[in-house]
């Protein structure tokens, strides 16, 4: 038996071992931006539930509240009912387009600065640095034996992480429950078990994602890097190592010697600082890659090194590969943040947000949903007339009991009756609806004998607010027999 087997490549593996990343501390412009965003976003996240907003009696006074039990969503002066969930859809579409626009302008701005995974990981890393020191100390600590000091450093770190994670879950549940009440209930251990469960889930996920998994989430779990890679184009700015200027790299000494010999030498002194500060463990000099979240920290690191060796900043910078080619050819650099694609995104976003703002401002605080009886579609009466029946749901989104008059029009002589309602005014039924409630009524519509009624006739059901005179209309059909 001699099977023609070729010798395998010796280092072929199908599984990437996890290499723990030890990012070094860095300071600079992008680090400052990231700190500012961290403080702002986490501040909003942890504190927003405590902001109060007076909506009058019988309504929650929390500015942002998702009231699952009463199926209402409150956002300052906006109140969303379940049937208006399309506002949420609109918001999500606008958010997606905003993501695409950011990507078209400057690559993974979301990943590098705004993504919760990045923000919380940043916070957890600073806690880690506080307890265990910078990169070198942490490497030594992890490689060293367990000592009392190491144990307490680790304990302090994990305890603080868990505290932050717990508060992350704690703040999350406050968006779904009245915040002061829930904090009191949590403090006195009287909160509902579901609240504890949700805090538990979010504590676990925050601790796991931001403390343990970190860049693994971005590299292996998150779909956005893949989608982003398919979306990006040549004009989008990316964190780029300008190899046209940096190569050939070498230590300051080597490069000086090369220059003295009249040979080319790059600006990169191969100090590896860009790699050491990277939170995902990427060497940016290998070019654009999936693992790079484009947080800009390598730019900060490189700039400070360039400053020290007396070379201009921007060896690593937001740039495009096109510009590298242009510089190699001696052409001037070109930047096109405003181009058809970004303008189109901006127009779409403006249209969606504008449309939503318009409809929010002009939406009615009352209305009616109509469902025509399906069986029977119509009833022939002994008088020779035809009757149709509708199940109508009246909506009152205001904080007081409202009186409405419901009427029907569209066919000559059509009249209306509402089951269990005795109060009629000008042929319209007067119906009361309690504050912030809906009411289902059964509406009967009649055409008199002799009226020509086709198989299906358009009719309009009108609902008049008797206090203001404003009318809300809904179209439906009046059905009849085949002639």
């Amino acid at each position, binding site marked *: 038996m001699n099977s023609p*087997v070729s010798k395998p490549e010796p280092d072929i593996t199908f599984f990437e071992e996890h290499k723990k990343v030890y990012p070094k501390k860095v300071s600079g412009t992008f680090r400052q931006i990231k700190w500012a965003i961290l403080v702002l976003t986490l501040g909003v996240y942890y504190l927003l539930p405590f902001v109060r907003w007076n909506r009058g009696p019988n309504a929650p006074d929390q500015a942002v509240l998702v009231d699952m039990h009463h199926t209402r969503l409150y956002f300052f002066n906006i109140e969303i009912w379940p049937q208006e969930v399309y506002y949420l859809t609109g918001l999500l579409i606008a958010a997606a387009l905003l993501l695409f626009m950011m990507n078209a302008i400057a690559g993974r701005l979301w990943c590098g600065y705004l993504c919760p995974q990045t923000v919380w990981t940043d916070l957890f890393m600073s806690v880690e640095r506080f307890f265990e020191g910078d990169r070198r100390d942490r490497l030594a600590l992890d490689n060293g034996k367990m000592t009392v000091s190491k144990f307490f450093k680790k304990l302090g770190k994990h305890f603080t992480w868990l505290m932050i994670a717990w508060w992350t879950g704690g703040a999350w549940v406050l968006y779904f429950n009245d915040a002061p009440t829930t904090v009191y209930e949590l403090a006195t251990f009287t909160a509902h078990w579901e609240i504890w469960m949700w805090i538990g889930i979010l504590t676990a996920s925050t601790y796991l994602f931001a403390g343990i998994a970190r860049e693994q989430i971005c590299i292996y779990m998150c779909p956005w890097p893949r989608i982003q890679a398919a979306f990006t184009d040549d004009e989008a700015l990316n964190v780029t190592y300008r190899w046209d200027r940096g190569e050939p790299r070498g230590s300051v000494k080597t490069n000086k010697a090369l220059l003295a010999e009249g040979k080319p030498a790059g600006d990169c002194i191969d100090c590896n600082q860009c790699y050491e500060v990277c939170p995902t463990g990427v060497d940016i000099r290998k070019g654009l890659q999936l693992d790079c979240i484009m947080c800009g920290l390598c730019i900060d690191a490189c700039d400070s090194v360039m400053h020290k060796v007396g070379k201009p900043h921007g060896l690593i910078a937001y740039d495009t590969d096109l510009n590298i080619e242009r510089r190699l050819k001696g052409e001037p650099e070109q930047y096109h943040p405003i181009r058809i694609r970004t303008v189109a995104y901006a127009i779409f976003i403006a249209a969606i947000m504008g449309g939503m703002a318009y409809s929010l401002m002009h939406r009615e605080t009352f209305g009616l949903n109509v469902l025509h009886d399906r*069986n029977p579609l119509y*009833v*022939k009466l*002994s*008088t020779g007339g035809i009757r149709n*029946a509708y199940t109508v749901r009246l909506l009152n989104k205001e904080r007081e009991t409202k009186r409405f008059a419901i009427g029907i029009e569209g066919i000559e002589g059509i009249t209306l009756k509402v089951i*269990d309602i005795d109060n009629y005014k000008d042929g319209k039924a007067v119906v009361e609806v309690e504050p912030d409630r809906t009411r289902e009524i*059964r509406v009967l519509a009649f055409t008199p004998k002799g009226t020509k009624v086709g198989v299906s006739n358009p009719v309009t059901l009108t609902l008049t607010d008797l206090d203001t005179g404003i009318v809300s209309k809904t179209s439906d059909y009046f059905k009849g027999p085949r002639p």
Partner: protein
Amino acid sequence: MADDHKGRVDELSGVETTGHSWDGLEELNNPMPSWWLYTFYASIVFAIGYMVLYPSWPVGGEKDHLKGTLAWNARDAVNKAVKDAAAAKDPMVKKLMATDISAVRNDKALARFAGRSGKAAFGDNCAPCHGSGATGSKGYPGLVDDDWLWGGTLEQIQHTIKVGIRSEHDETRNNSMAAYGDDELLDKTKILNVASYVLSLSGHGKEVGGDIAAGEAVFKETCVSCHGPEGKGMQKQGAPNLSDDIWLFGGKPADVIATITHGRKGLMPTWEGRLDEATIKALAIYVHNRGGGQ
């Protein structure tokens, strides 16, 4: 070539093969992944626990089995669910019993409860004859129109459901449309004439082909006692209105002639005793609110 079923070490992967070979393709004898094995062991442990707690082995004869320490069975679970549902409804049922049927509408929650439970009871008990939309069919009256044999008020509908028509109930509703032809009370010409007159009340008299005036004379003599002088019917006796466009047994000339010749004896069972009082009340409210209630 691998008939001896002896494994060899694969040089590519360094793993032993199973020794099986199919057209030169061989299988590596890798161990099961440990996560898979642990899941497998865990499910064995689970199964043992399940067998102890729940009914499992068919021992002790054909129809017997181990009951399990929890003594759970599907029938008890259903009974309990039914009992729980009844208990949950109980306050509303009691309230419905205590409330006058015409006053139910004043309590929105109660009216809603009556409407919903009436709909469910209608589907279970009434729909087979009256149709799921309560539209009826030939011989089975529609309950959605405004034409009522025995009256369309809440109380009248409730009473009809309770006692039925020609049922075993002592107070059953009973109307008697005689078989005028079969019993030789009227001859064929008279039947044709009276049918012509009856259909002329709703404007279709000429379609029958009899003598309308002669028919009127027969009608005055024979039919007025139940159907009234103008053929408008009499709900006390369950006599239908003959002057409108709604015909329980058909409004074609042949239908009307057949009705007069053979008589009609519609049936509806009594529901007292089969349905409880609250359900009958809810049914009456539901039927009334279909649109035809008076």
